[in-house]
């Protein structure tokens, strides 16, 4: 987008185009370090109040119009990042550097919009009660799962994972307290609203993305202390102990760099922590508009077990599935009106740990006496490794060459 196109869009928006152009230029100066955020704020505060009043939302309308389309779900001041970045001199800059630069400019604008912390928000205090925001989550219907492991394979391929790094993991288990011989539990990262991993991270690499609740790892910041892995009650983290199986040269930046310009997608580099990202590249539209609101595991599931979407939106696929499933299993309350409304069991994993997970399961929760058993489809038969330590031990013994993991 060049200056003229931007001006045209600004004029279409009905707001002061000159103001918008001056702000965009100064935002670049903030990004380049030539202008302090404070000065930037001071310079435009009065004018913005006059133009938009005090409501941040109206400011976001400006952003939406700049994009040329209305971003409905994400209350995302960073959506401007790549637009601003495209105004910068792109000669000799990689996409990652460019986006980082644009991200800084957008952050400066974010300060103006009264939500400056969002671009750098680092876990711990991220609230989950704001129903206006997107909160990506899942409803996983365990009653539908047949243990085919297609979701694990899809995740492994989409994110270029190293052997044994099972971001998506399907348990088959026996449980004295359940009738079936084979029960399933489908475990992604729970993308907890009150996630212990983001609280304990010493450097803020593990963080909750404010605009949509995704719990992500900034691969550029992580020091590899593994405290997040130690603190997580679910065991969803997989460290990159050695060289990744898939080299970075084979992975596009679109998979790796999110809308804020941070490196959070695809498998982590060596010495850094990785885990399920809820396919952040898809949610940011970098895999195409049609992939927003989908995940690789959900797409691969032919049993209609995995339902991904905005948990704050009652009309989202997971919430619709949940209510439809409840409706289909209504309880007969004609005689006993104090009975529950439906006969379906649902739960959140280890809810008593206080993590407020964003994955809801339909089906029975494994009891304390449940034990994992071999499933109808073995991990090995679909080309996956279950116990990663076997791979790592081989790497520890190998001298050179065979140290991928």
């Amino acid at each position, binding site marked *: 987008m060049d200056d003229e196109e931007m001006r045209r869009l600004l004029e279409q928006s009905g707001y002061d185009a000159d103001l918008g152009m001056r702000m965009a230029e100064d935002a670049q100066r903030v990004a380049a370090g030539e202008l302090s955020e404070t000065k930037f704020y001071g310079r435009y505060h009065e004018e913005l109040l006059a133009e938009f009043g005090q409501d941040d939302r109206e400011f976001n309308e400006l952003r939406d119009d700049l994009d040329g389309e209305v971003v409905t779900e994400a209350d995302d001041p960073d959506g401007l990042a790549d637009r601003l970045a495209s105004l910068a001199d792109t000669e000799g800059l990689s996409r990652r550097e460019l986006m980082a630069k644009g991200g800084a400019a957008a952050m400066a604008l974010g300060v103006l919009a009264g939500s400056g912390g969002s671009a750098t928000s680092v876990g711990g205090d991220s609230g989950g009660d704001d129903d206006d925001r997107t909160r990506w989550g899942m409803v996983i219907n365990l009653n539908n799962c047949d243990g085919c492991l297609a979701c694990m394979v899809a995740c492994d391929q989409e994110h270029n994972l190293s052997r044994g790094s099972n971001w998506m993991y399907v348990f088959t288990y026996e449980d004295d307290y359940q009738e079936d011989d084979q029960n399933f539990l489908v475990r992604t990262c729970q993308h907890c609203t009150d996630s*212990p991993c983001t609280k304990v991270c010493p450097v803020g690499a593990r963080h909750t993305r404010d605009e949509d609740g995704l719990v992500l790892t900034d691969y550029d*910041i992580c020091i590899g202390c593994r405290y997040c892995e130690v603190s997580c009650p679910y*065991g969803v983290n997989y460290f990159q102990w050695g060289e990744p199986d898939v080299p970075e040269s084979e992975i596009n930046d679109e998979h790796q760099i999110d809308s804020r310009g941070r490196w959070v997608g695809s498998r982590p580099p060596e010495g850094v922590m990785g885990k399920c990202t809820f396919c952040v590249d898809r949610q940011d539209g970098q895999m195409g508009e049609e992939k927003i609101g989908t995940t690789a595991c959900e797409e691969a599931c032919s049993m209609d077990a995995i339902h991904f979407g905005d948990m704050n939106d009652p009309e989202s696929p997971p919430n619709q599935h949940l209510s439809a499933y409840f409706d289909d299993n209504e309880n007969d309350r004609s005689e006993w009106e104090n009975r529950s409304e439906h006969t379906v069991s649902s739960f959140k994993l280890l809810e008593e*740990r206080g993590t407020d997970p964003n994955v809801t399961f339909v089906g029975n929760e494994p009891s304390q006496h449940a034990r994992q058993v071999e499933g109808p489809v073995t991990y090995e038969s679909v080309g996956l490794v279950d116990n990663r330590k076997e791979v790592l031990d081989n*790497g520890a013994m190998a001298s050179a060459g065979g140290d991928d993991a």
Partner: protein
Amino acid sequence: MSVDTSGVDRETLLRPIHTRTSRYTIAVAAALVAIGVWLFFYYQQLEHGLIVTNLADWGSGGGVPWGLYIGAFIWWVGIAHGGIILSAAVRLLGMDTYQPVARIAELLTIAALSCAGLFILIHVGRPDRLVTSVLPAWPTRVQWSPLMWDVTVITAYFVLTGVYLLLTIRYDLHRLRAQLPDRLEPVYAALTVGYSEREDQVIERMVWWIAFAIIIMAPLLLHGGVIPWLFALLPSMAGWHGGVQGPSFLSIALTSAVSGIIIVAAAFRYAYGWEELIPDAVFRGLAKWLGFFSLLFVWLQLQQVITGIFAAPTTLQHATEVKIATPLYWVAIGLVILAMVYAFATALKPSLFSLPALVGLSIGVLVGTLVEKVLFVVEGLMHAHFDLYSGVPGAYTPSAVELSALVGAIGIVALFFLTVSKVIPVVELHAIEGDHGSSVDATTATAETSNTGGER
């Protein structure tokens, strides 16, 4: 003063600086070999990544992500508590008995904290980012991350101890300057820059307050605080939870710290014939401390075992049952109990005392505390609340790369003492001349009243 070292001359005090023996050369060579062995292995870790350790992911991964490196980190921070125990005893409580080993203990603090830092450095996957990631994140993350609390408190402890050492050393260097080697003149000039005898009184008061600050910070906030909180605050692992971890960690730290001082002080006494400078009475006193801290150690273990097995929540009960079924745990506890029994026996029957036996038992205590710390970390990670994984409990034995780091760290501490003892007197001049506290009002009263208590 219950220990009379006033007959010792300055030449004896400066013996490490003035002598050079073949035994010294061999000791330096041995330390360098130990460091070399570690560097050889660590180079492989830098080249291939942490895959050369036996660490792995917990959960489906079938391993534990923290192991010997973190266990050794806690162990070294524990040993570092020797400095504060001794400087508090001498400066705050006037127990001049321990004056001859006070500086050795402070130097041990500096060396041990450095080793603790080293273990964090080699533990992380991206050591190159320790500065670039940690410094910018500090202002926001210190409000949340227990690991950042640790970094903060350990840094503060290191700085305070370093300042304490630098301030107290000026008095000695100024008075001993004529007997110190000229080729190190720039070092002494730097250490005593701006010194005048008028500052002695002020310095004495400053170090009293520094000792006072550290005695609150190091035991209560560091090893009885942020280090156990690294584990006790997490919702993931059953065996780590609970308020007892603070006192328990502290008891282990103090036990290992006294053992560390006994070993280093005995080594100096042996090497330089310092029977007069560091007399038996010092070690007899330290043995009583060792006995008392060991008792606390064992008592707090008892607390955890009893509350863990009687009617505990199922996951904690399971973790505790596994802990007490681990033979290595009983080896650790046994080594500590052995030292405790010996310490109390020599207190009742002084003729039982033998310095070689005490040193041997102190080494046993250090082995025991290291084993206990590594087991705490590793077994803790093996018994998550969520144990549906067939890979839980995971498996772990330290690899050669990890074990070599222990050898290297011990080599670093040895080399540190071998080097420092050639430059500065490792025993304070106060130990043989004059009373440091007599001119300071605030401490005189305390010193006088507790002097009697310090008599043994």
